[in-house]
């Protein structure tokens, strides 16, 4: 693929990869780094947590993921209120190097579905403070539009619940979101295997973000590579334009010249 001329741009920032990956659930940082390299992703999400002050022997994630080489995208994972999400976003900015934040305001622990009312409220506050807010949202076209209207430069609708591996449960809503908003769409969460990622890209997603599908696979490094090709293939197919679906056959070989 001509990746040079097919770069994803969000809020004036250029992204090399259309596959974004999370850094959770790996065995150790070595495996994390290897999987990310195999995936070819240049955007990696991270969480913000207390430093372990009693055991300083533990390595730091940034020792393995050089912020000069990867775009570090902090999330507000684990936040169930507007106040918490805003607090964690501010801490992420203070700990890091940029204004980027993947904003999550979760609704409940069982589904981890976004609390979209809280999400919009938190996004408004953070955008006013100069954050580049990439919101993790439901596959709801109206909410997606509202998020864009208040200044989110991209939206991240889920394919299915986080870590569920169910794949794209509502392709039609995702398609409507893609038609409705004029900013990049990053399908986030719910991908189970390579075909899910390819499908998301074929529908017209601008990127796919995943964690568990890779980290939880029997062989994370192989799955990371599979996802890289799936996202490429899906993007290429989208750009190429698929044939329309028809009920009956159309012969590929000419009739002319037959005996």
């Amino acid at each position: 693929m001509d990746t040079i001329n097919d770069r994803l741009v969000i809020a004036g920032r250029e992204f090399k990869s259309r596959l974004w990956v999370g850094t959770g659930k790996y065995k150790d940082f070595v495996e994390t780094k290897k999987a990310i390299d195999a995936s070819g992703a240049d955007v990696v999400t991270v969480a913000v947590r207390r430093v372990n002050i009693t055991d300083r022997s533990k390595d730091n994630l940034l020792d393995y993921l050089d912020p000069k080489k990867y775009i570090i995208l902090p999330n507000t994972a684990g936040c169930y209120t507007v106040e918490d999400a805003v607090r964690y976003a501010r801490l992420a900015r203070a700990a890091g190097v940029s204004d980027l934040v993947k904003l999550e305001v979760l609704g409940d622990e069982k589904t981890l579905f976004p609390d979209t009312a809280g999400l919009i409220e938190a996004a408004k506050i953070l955008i006013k403070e100069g954050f580049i807010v990439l919101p993790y949202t439901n596959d709801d076209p109206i909410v997606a539009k509202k998020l864009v209207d208040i200044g989110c430069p991209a939206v991240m609708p889920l394919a299915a619940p986080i870590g569920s591996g169910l794949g794209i449960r509502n392709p039609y809503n995702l398609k409507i979101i893609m038609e409705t908003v004029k900013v990049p769409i990053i399908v986030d969460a719910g991908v189970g295997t390579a075909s899910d990622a390819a499908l998301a890209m074929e529908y017209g997603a601008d990127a796919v973000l995943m964690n568990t599908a890779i980290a939880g696979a029997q062989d994370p490094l192989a799955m990371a590579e599979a996802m890289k090709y799936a996202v490429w293939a899906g993007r290429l197919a989208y750009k190429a334009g698929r044939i329309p679906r028809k009920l009956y056959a159309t012969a590929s070989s000419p009739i002319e010249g037959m005996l």
Partner: protein
Amino acid sequence: MFIQVNGESRGIGEGQTVAALLQELDIRADRVAVELNLEILDRKDFETRSLCEGDRVEILSFIGGGAE
């Protein structure tokens, strides 16, 4: 005097700065965010900001995470 660091009580010297606390804990200042009594500190203030009895300090950094 005693302060709370990441929820644990810790004895420190009178007037110790945030930067000195990080150094004592063997924590790289450029890798963390520090919240002092719910106020997020600017990194450039670590050297000058001194701690007081009962202060609540939170030191956070990036860890592996996807979502949830």
